[in-house]
Structures are given as C-alpha cells and as structure tokens.
C-alpha cells in the first residue's frame, strides 16, 4: 500500500532521528565548536563599551549558527551513505521531496539543540539582549533558510570529488545574503540601525527562506534517481 505524503515524511524523519541518536558523537563536534566560540569571545569581549559589545555578540551568535549548521549539513546523509540506505529508499515508490523535508527538519532540530542553549548562555553570561520575540523570529528564519540550503547542497555534493572542500565553497556565498539580512535586522532591534528598516530586512530574510526552501523542495526530486 502506498503511503501518503505525511506518512512518508514521518517515516523518513523517524528513521533519520534514530540514526542520529544511535551515534551521538555525530553532533558532539558541533557542540564543542559552540563551546569554543563562547570561551573565545568571552575573553575577547573584555572591557568593550556596551554598544560595541552588542555588535560583537550578534556577530558571535550568527557565526556560531553558520558553522554549527555547516557541520550538521556536511554529515546529514552520512548515516544512510554508510548503510547504503539511500539506494534502498530510492527503490521504494517514495516522493523524494519528503526525504528532503525530513532531513531539513532533522538539521533544524539538531542545530537548534545547540544554537538555542548557546543563545541562553550568551544571555546569562554577557547579558545579550536577545530575549525578544522578534529576535527569536530572526534566529528561526536564519536557521530554516540555512538548513534548506545546506541540505540541498549536501546532497548535490554527495558524488563530487573533494566534497569536504567543495561544500563550504558552495555554501558560503549562498549563505552570505541570509547572514547579512539577519545581522542587519538584529541591529535594527538593538537601535544600531534605523528601526524603520526592520521590516525590510525581515522581508528579505523571509524571502530568502521561502526561495531556498521552495527551490530545495522542487529541485530535490530532479537530482535524485539519476545515478
């Protein structure tokens, strides 16, 4: 019996989740990276004036998010690759877009498990003024955009030579507009940029989120099943 779209999505998500939880060392690397950033910036902040401190903390948060997501994306298909499970999945009458969405959800879940506690520590240790709904929205949109993009690129580079080098080269230039709009929107919140511009930056960020997710959803089917 053929499964519905949501049943397929649930199966892929559950399978991916159990594969990730079976080997926690997969995401410990991202966690240690976030801790390193936190320690490094804690020392660097020193006697910075308040305005500068907020700017540096904003950069710290998005820098951490960018690299945590990059590490997550690089190995998002690793479990299936090791077990040759992708070939089995492709042989089923499954809509590959459900596989893509499941992987995006997993990337969001596992990076959020690191990024949001990291944000909590930044608020506790440095008084980062991020306890607002608007900042949560900016952070969420950035994570979704980068995940939608990262999962697509990760699949695209699966069969490429020198994948570990190639992935950041593709990911970085496409992630730059997301990071710039997220940083600018945050600056509008902290009063470091005109407040009237907040909606414009948020619109750009939302636009990129929609574009990357829609392109990933529509194009993922095209780049699977051609080997």
């Amino acid at each position: 019996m053929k499964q519905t779209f949501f049943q397929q999505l649930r199966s892929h998500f559950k399978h991916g989740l159990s594969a990730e939880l079976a080997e926690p060392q997969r995401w410990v690397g991202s966690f240690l990276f976030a801790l390193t950033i936190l320690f490094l910036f804690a020392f660097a902040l020193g006697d910075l004036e308040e305005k500068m401190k907020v700017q540096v903390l904003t950069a710290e948060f998005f820098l951490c998010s960018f690299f945590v997501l990059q590490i997550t994306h690089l190995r998002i298909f690793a479990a299936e690759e090791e077990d040759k499970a992708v070939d089995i999945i492709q042989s089923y009458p499954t809509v590959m877009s459900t596989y893509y969405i499941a992987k995006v959800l997993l990337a969001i879940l596992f990076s959020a498990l690191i990024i949001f506690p990291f944000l909590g520590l930044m608020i506790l240790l440095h008084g980062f003024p991020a306890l607002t709904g608007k900042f949560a929205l900016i952070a969420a949109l950035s994570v979704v955009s980068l995940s939608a993009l990262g999962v697509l690129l990760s699949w695209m580079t699966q069969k490429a030579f020198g994948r570990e080098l190639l992935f950041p080269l593709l990911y970085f230039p496409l992630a730059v507009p997301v990071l710039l709009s997220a940083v600018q929107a945050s600056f509008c919140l902290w009063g470091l940029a005109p407040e009237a511009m907040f909606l414009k930056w948020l619109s750009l960020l939302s636009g990129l989120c929609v574009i990357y997710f829609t392109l990933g959803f529509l194009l993922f089917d095209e780049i699977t099943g051609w080997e």
Partner: protein
Amino acid sequence: MNLTKKDKKAFFLGAGVFAALVLVWTSAAWLVPAEAFQGEVYRILYIHVPSASCAFLCASLLFGFSIASLVKKSPQAQFGLWARASAEIGLFFTVLTLATGSLWGKPTWGTWWTWDARLTTTFVLALLYGAYLLLESSMPAGILRQKVCAVMGVLIFADVPIIYKSVTWWRTLHQPPTLNFAGSVPMDGPILRTLIFSLVLCVASCLWFVWQRSANLRLRLLFEDQSFRQWRGV
C-alpha cells in the same frame, strides 16, 4: 587548417564586434569630454558599467540554460555546455567589474577596496561563478552532473536581484544605478551615447564569447569521446 563556412562567419562576426568595441573605447578615451567633477578618471565607466551588465546577463543565461536542462527529461548535454560557457564568461566579466571598480575607487573614494554592500555582493557573485565551475569540474560526467549543476545555476540566479538592489537597500558608498527605466538620466548627451554604444557592443561580445566557448567545449567533448572509443577499441 580548413575552416568551415560557419567558422568563417563566426570569426568575422567576432572580429567586427571587437573592432567596433575598440573604436568606441578609443573615442571614449580621446573624443568624449571629461566629466565636470571627476575629471578623466570617470572614463573607466565605459568598461565598468558594460562589464557589470554582462556579468548579470551571464547569470540570466546560466539560469535559462539550467532551467532548460532541468525541464528537458532526455539527456541534453548541449544545455550543460551552454551553461558552463555562461559561467566562465560571467566569471570573467565579474572579475573585470571588480577590477575596474577598484581602479576607479582608489582616486575617487581613496581606497582600492571597501566592504561596501555592492562590492561585497558582486564579490559573492564572483565566488558563486567560481563555485559553479568547481562543482562542474569535480563531478564525473553524466546526467547527475548536468542536473546538479543546473540546480546550482538556479540558486546563483537568486543572488542577482540582491546584488542589483543592494545600492538601494543598504546605505552604501556606491552610487545608485545611473541608467534606469524611469527616464531621467543625469548625463550629458555625448557621454550617454558613448556609454550606450559600449554597453551594446560589450553585450554583443559577451554573447559571442559564450557562443564560441560552448562550441569549444562541444569540440573537447567530441575529442574526449573519440579518444575513449579508440582506447576501448570500439
């Protein structure tokens, strides 16, 4: 060396376009008057603006060929070759835009480079073209490579509106677009006419480059295929 009729036509067409371009640039350097505020340095505009337009044009071509690659269900290597040629020529014109902008920036802004929004986003476009070419050359030939590169071509195009609008969205050093569809162009007649001529000829040379480069790539593919067949003894 035996040139076919088509080769001769391509050669004379290219030679004609380049001769006209050299003529326009020569007149831009000697005959068109200097600009009232910037003096002689403004003349770099006759290379900078057309090359920036060609960089955008190549992104549009890349997008078009990528979409065609994805829509055509049968393996059509042809579109892949056109797309690769567009990316190569796009990279050339983007680097030319950055270099001429930098040459103009030193006497005008007092610096070779600044992390201005327009400069940064154009630099990102150069990186994207480079990334496309790296991706294409690091995958084994076949339909998968064609599809993956087509997806990358579509993603690159998403960056173009951001670069174009960066001067209005961000507060930047770079001036807003001078040539626009609104009708008011703050330029003298001779300057504007020369700029439009160089723009049209630069676009023609860009299209010629893409055409010739894709023909060159097709030839290479043919040679590789034939040498592989000889090696296999087919």
